[in-house]
């Protein structure tokens, strides 16, 4: 037994960290999202070159054949750099859905293209964790009708996977007749959210979709939690660093206990989350009976701790934290978005209670 990252996993995180340090300074993020949320296609190709787009895809389809723990570690670094890419939908949720539910033709058509970075897949899973504004998609005779909200992934994704009211999973092509795509605008412009209106849209069913949706939710929750962990860790580091530059009363503000204790509290809250997340990602494949409960805990706990760190780190920066100049708000907003997607803390805690037979 060993509860630690392997050397390969540490190297994986280091390589993504190096790439993003190099390719994605904050100014680049600013520039990209200046006119609203976009997907950074250039960065995506760099990620593809590192083999990250097909991380979860078996080698026979051109991927690396790694597991959810590895994907979670990549997502953590993406959150650290508020990367405007749709790794979670295209490279995690879509491959998991296709591998579990698709026909061999469907797999052959799409998985190699995900792996080489040429196919973006959006995933509509929101209604499986709670439908807002009466959203929901119904399927009959291969045609989809209704509305899907908060679809995750690039706004111009070529393929869309949707969960339907009957529990089935369907693949819709972006150019299908009767499909209307409306960009939603959240606080966080580094991630795209889309509304889909479907009027008799032709779709391909993924035949084994029925049991997959709950498991996709688990994976999505773990990934969102990882993104928040990375973002929050970065905010903590920025707060510690800023507090040792900024002087007031002839001292760096980081030498005041009032400020040190805020930083210590952030670290004390955040560090155990890392272990919880490691286990949740590990359990997804290795301990299936724990997977749902741990995904709920990871999502809920990172939602809470992420919010605490986001506001506290901003506060440590004083007035500058509140401005656009330092750009701290990109992380603040990303953490805010992650908290609500695929079930906010209160909803997933209710699910955690149900999973344990407490209600």
């Amino acid at each position: 037994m060993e509860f630690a990252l392997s050397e390969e996993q540490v190297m994986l995180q280091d390589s993504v960290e190096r790439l993003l340090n190099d390719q994605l300074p904050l100014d680049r993020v600013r520039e990209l999202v200046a006119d609203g949320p976009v997907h950074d296609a250039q960065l995506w190709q760099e990620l593809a070159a590192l083999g990250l787009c097909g991380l979860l895809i078996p080698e026979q389809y051109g991927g690396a054949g790694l597991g959810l723990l590895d994907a979670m570690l990549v997502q953590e670094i993406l959150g650290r750099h508020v990367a405007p890419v749709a790794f979670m939908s295209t490279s995690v949720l879509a491959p998991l859905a296709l591998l579990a539910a698709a026909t061999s033709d469907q797999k052959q058509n799409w998985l190699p293209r995900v792996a080489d970075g040429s196919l973006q897949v959006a995933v509509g899973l929101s209604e499986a964790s709670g439908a807002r504004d009466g959203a929901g998609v119904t399927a009959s005779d291969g045609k989809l009708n209704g509305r899907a909200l908060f679809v995750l992934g690039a706004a111009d994704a070529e393929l869309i996977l949707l969960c339907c009211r009957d529990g089935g999973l369907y693949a819709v092509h972006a150019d299908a007749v009767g499909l209307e795509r409306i960009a939603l605008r959240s606080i966080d412009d580094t991630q795209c959210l889309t509304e889909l209106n479907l009027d008799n849209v032709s779709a391909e069913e993924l035949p084994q979709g029925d049991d997959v949706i709950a498991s996709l939710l688990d994976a999505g929750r773990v990934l969102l939690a990882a993104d928040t962990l990375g973002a929050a860790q970065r905010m903590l580091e920025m707060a510690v660093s800023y507090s040792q530059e900024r002087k007031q009363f002839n001292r760096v503000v980081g030498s005041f206990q009032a400020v040190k204790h805020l930083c210590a509290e952030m670290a004390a809250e955040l560090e155990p989350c890392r272990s919880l997340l490691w286990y949740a990602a590990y359990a997804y494949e290795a301990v299936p009976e724990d997977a749902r409960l741990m995904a709920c805990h990871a999502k809920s706990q990172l939602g809470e701790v992420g919010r605490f760190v986001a506001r506290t780190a901003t506060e440590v920066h004083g007035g500058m934290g509140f401005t656009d100049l330092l750009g701290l708000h990109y992380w603040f907003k990303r953490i805010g978005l992650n908290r609500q997607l695929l079930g906010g803390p209160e909803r997933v805690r209710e699910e955690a209670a149900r999973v344990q037979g407490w209600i």
Partner: protein
Amino acid sequence: MDLAYSPVYQQFREEVRHFLESHRADWPPRSSLGRPSAAARKWQAMLIAQGYTARTIPAQYGGHGGEPDILKSRIIAEEFTRAGAPGGLAGQGVSMLVPTLLEMGTEEQKKHWIPKTLSGEVLWCQGYSEPGAGSDLANLQTRGTEDGDDFVINGQKIWTSTAHEADMIFCLVRTEPDAPKHKGISYLLFSMDTPGIEVRPLKTMTGHAEFNEVFFTDVRVPKTSIVGERGQGWLVANATLKHERGMLGDPNTAGTRLAAIVELMREETVDGTTLMENPLLRDRLVQLQSRVLSMQFNGLRLLTAQNAGTNPGIARLIVKLQGCELNHQLAALAIDALGELGVLYNASPRLRGKGVWQRSYMFDLGLIIGGGTAQIQKNIIAERGLGMPREPKPAPTPGGAR
């Protein structure tokens, strides 16, 4: 990352489980940190023989002499918790003095003290804090004045748990009055029967005297009772404090407490519905469960790092702060869930769980303060974990007074 247990470990787990079940008659009644009963000492001897406690302490010092194996340690802890079986002795002698002697003691000290301590024959108390030396422990003023082959000790200690029963004390004494405050302290071991020692119980908010004050008047202690060198007591004490902080905030306590609250909330009712049916209480329960699990997995991570000899950094520094606070919050939830029943105390009719929740809620506040206050823990996390600046030193006092 691999949490699967190989067949060797599965078999070890079976052995532990079988041992606990088949020796149920030998389980001593649960007791506090004071002098162990005959049954508790017999149980301790059985556990050492099995390697379920004092596992890695060399056999020549009365331990089991086993190889370090974090998995087996983990399995032992899990199986004892699962069975509800009492563990080995856990007083300050076993938990703090023994590891300190192993690290800093002479061969003679190890041979002389460790076996008697492990067996429960000798009960220890810890003489660290003083009325004027709490968070600023190095400011301690209890003096050991050299006189021939002895130190003559005068001063006062406080927060000395088990002092009223203890045979021996491990005690910090200022023996080098002219050295800087961190370099003038020695770590001494001496008998509580030495003339000139007076112990007064210190009653706390729980209504019990869990602690004492200890007064020293011309207490004569041979110089040979020192651990480490003269003036090195601060280093030796820090070795001990490290062990204490590892002990305070243990996530297994939180796990046991959480399980008890789950049971309580499923069984107790208000207006005819179970407490678990209240969504607000249930939400608090799940929130605390997230934190308990986080600290348990954090503990697994620490064990792995310990085994690999790597530094787990912040993951270790946060255990005391987070663990003690978590235990306190768990007790608070149990009290809130029980409502009016939750405030019953002192052997009242209708008392639940022998008053354990209120007692824990109050005593945990003592643990949040003791062993390095929460605020001191935050300084440590900020300074050692995050590399933030230390408090600026105050300007020297005129006249050089300490």
